[in-house]
């Protein structure tokens, strides 16, 4: 079961740094508008269905919002 997730950051710079890192590791992702949550993050985020993304970004400051299956 593939679960899409949004990886959200506080800094727009980090979104693209994250994108760079995922692309380097050949993890499929795209930049999309950040879904509305109870907390305000940067207006764009990374969307991916690859769990490896979380490990790839581990030293960065982010949160993960998982969408329904």
């Amino acid at each position, binding site marked *: 079961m593939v679960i899409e997730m949004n990886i959200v950051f*506080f800094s*727009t710079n980090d*979104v*693209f*740094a994250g994108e760079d890192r995922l692309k380097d590791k050949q993890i499929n992702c795209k930049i999309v508008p950040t879904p509305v949550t109870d907390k*305000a993050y*940067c207006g764009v985020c990374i969307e991916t269905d690859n769990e490896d993304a979380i490990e790839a970004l581990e030293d960065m400051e982010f949160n993960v919002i998982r969408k329904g299956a």
Partner: protein
Amino acid sequence: MIYFDNAATTKYKPETVIKAFVDYTRNVGVSPGRGSYSLGIDASRKLYQVRKSVGKYFGLGDLTNVVFTKNSTEAINLFFCGYLNKGDHVLITCYEHNSVLRPLQSMQDKGMIDYSIISREDLLLPAKQILDKYCKTNTKVLAVTLASNLTGRIVFSRDLFAEAKKHDITTFLDSSQGAGKIHISMEADKIDYLAFTGHKDLMGLPGTGGLCCKEKDKIVPLLQGGTGILGNEYVNPKAFPEGLEAGTLNMPAIWALGSAINYVSEHMEENQLKERHLVDTLLKELNEMGSVTIYDNEFERVSTIGINIEGHTSDEVVKYLDDNDVCVRGGIHCAILAHEALNTVSTGVVRISLSPSNTEEEIFRFIELIKKM
């Protein structure tokens, strides 16, 4: 027209720089870090790419530790006002531009900090001796210009910065003069913070500059306002670099800066050789004229020379040359400390500052005109 005022701004820009500005303005045209529509994401990605290019160019460890400002004056003010605390002492040289002197003087006048100036003579001392002489227990920052905007002398010393790090002093480089002419690596050269401007020898457009930071979390914002992120907070968020970039960035010019940095990097060696030849030619001719005083003649320099001509005030020389279609700058050059060190406050100085767009023919035309004075 002969343009010899490149230390003020480079008049002639590479075609790729102009093309990038036009391209962004026509085909993107939106602000980064604001809208989350595709075009906005493209703009944000382009901003990130230029940040990386700047970080790479200046040898930053973390490539995107770059805060964009509208010029180096703003970057310098951001650093001093955001980094220094009450009671700190700052060490500068006698060649610092007013953009370094004035914020420090202003902070000293308010009783916040004090600063000391390394004299022209003492700059010749070994690094350890300089710091032994000038450092205090509360010395927090050593701020040095890469080169003098008045005489062209290369002031930055790797030895001095390395010695400062042994004293746990934060090192700051104002690279406004020379960033496009001298290879600098913040990591290798022990530079903790670096201010740059886009429109001088980086060959970019006015309205761009920035502060490169070894560490992210040490600076308080200069401007409070919209940052494009965390808009629910009542003050700038602590996010870096956005928290230090309130207001809309000059993105067309920043995109053009990316092209400028690519251009300067690709052509650095050939430009260095060309400028070296032009400066050597000019110095040789000027040195043969008994009536010309060349300041800091004996020092290694960027392609800037400051002179005075016996029997003529600096403004007379500027006017005469302008009447003959040659642009040079005279007067104080926003460098009062250097003038005090060189004893040229009352005379001013005529500054000739070259770029790779200048030619040998222009040098000889200039010399011919000076000889006729």
